[in-house]
């Protein structure tokens, strides 16, 4: 009973990534912290889910089938759900050395995300961003 109650009040997080292992790792972490997790493996899948559910926060991978799939998805979502916080997860820094961030307003205007985290994501990092964005 207490468990159900806790789940019902739990914040819902939608994880969008074509990498099954990344989704699973994030799920473990988030569920341990009491969140409810929904997964989508493509931007199309994410849009389908968003038709019936509005999560409290989204974690989106930058590079899915198309290199900028995550970017496009963030832009699309911010148009209809401007208040929905999005964390952009990316391995682009470790793969290309290109670094970008969403720390300033200017950056956030360009990167339509509220935070950018580099993969592999560390538990405490993710926890910090979640606490900040879901306050």
């Amino acid at each position, binding site marked *: 009973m207490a468990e159900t109650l806790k789940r019902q009040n739990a914040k819902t997080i939608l994880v969008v990534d074509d990498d099954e*292992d990344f989704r699973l*790792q994030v799920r*473990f972490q988030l569920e341990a912290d009491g969140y409810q997790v929904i997964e989508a*493996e493509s931007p199309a899948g994410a849009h389908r889910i968003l038709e019936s559910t509005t999560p409290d926060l989204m974690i989106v991978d930058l590079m899915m089938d198309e290199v900028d799939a995550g970017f496009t998805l963030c832009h699309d979502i911010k148009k209809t759900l401007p208040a929905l916080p999005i964390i952009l997860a990316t391995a682009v820094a470790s793969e290309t050395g290109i670094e970008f961030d969403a720390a300033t307003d200017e950056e956030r205007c360009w990167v339509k995300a509220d935070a950018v985290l580099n993969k*592999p994501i560390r*538990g405490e990092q993710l926890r910090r961003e979640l606490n900040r964005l879901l306050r």
Partner: protein
Amino acid sequence: MTETLRILIADDEDAMRLVIKRALREFSLSVPDVGVDVALEMEEAPTGEEAVERIAATHPDLVLLDLKLPGISGLEVLEQIKDYGEERLVIMITAYATIQTAVTATKQGAYDFLAKPFTPEELRSTVRKAIRHLILSRQARRLAEEKRRVRFEFISVLAHELKSPINAVEGYLNTLQEDFARNDPAIFDRIVGRSRIRLEGMRKIINDLLDMTRIESGRKKRDITEVDVVDVARMALESVAPTVLERGIEVHLDAPESLTMTADRGEIEIILNNLVSNAVKYNKDNGRVDVILRDTEGRTIITVSDTGIGTSPAEAAKLFNDFVRIKNTKTKHILGSGLGLSIVKKLALLYGGDVSVESQPDVGSAFTVSLHDAAYGETEASPPAQATASSDT
């Protein structure tokens, strides 16, 4: 393919330029080795200075250059255009070709000589020789460039494919550092299980890569004996037996009692293992796999068909290239190196045979490999000439 080459006629005599133009007007040449037909576009320069200017501006492919020109001489033109980068062939036209001028001109990059007076046929024959040389050397350079590009692409895809399991396992190790993961047996098992699967996938890529390198380099010692292909097929089917059972797949072997061919057993194993494991991997649950072995006109024909996800003809055509894994929601959860079919193709070519596929989406695929006997006494595999070409395209 028709290639238009620019030819510059640099001669101070109007009559000579006219003669040359006339002789080359109807000129045509085809270089069948590379499938190129050549058409010519002609331009003229009456002085050495103009010749240099035109060479810099229009980059002619071939220059007919008179040695004796008013102003700067033919040799000086050669000297000046030496560093123009663009590749071009120069044929010197001269009335008094001494050994000395010949040596100097050749040193400065002239390709050939034409001594005045010459007949139109002599001119055409000299030009023909130069153009053949030009076309063939350009083709060789293009192929080398293409090979470099394919190699680069191969390495970057390979690096990506090898990095992906490392990232996954590293992520799981990070998760394991968290108390909740260490203390929850279910999560712990899942993490170890997934890590193993990803590492296994990585090992498969590396093993396939080694197979491929051995085949392509031709360094591998081949052990050519009488091989019973039916026996090899049975073993390939045994190795997938647990999965077949688990997924309710029906397997049929349609073959004579035995079917022997002269081959390296390891290579025939690689072919059958790849085809059979693909037929199971890409099948539907409760599907069917058929392995048919035949001896037709001295060739061994292996057909492996499945009732799996299949693929479109356009995508099927790409299947035998390196690292081609048709990526869609249906194949997403199927592990593979993307090298298996490319290896099968290379081996088939090594046996003077080939591999083909017939496939229909959601119906299934049928792969057919035809093999000739390998020659006895052949202890080292000579790399199949076509294999490199096909993997390059």
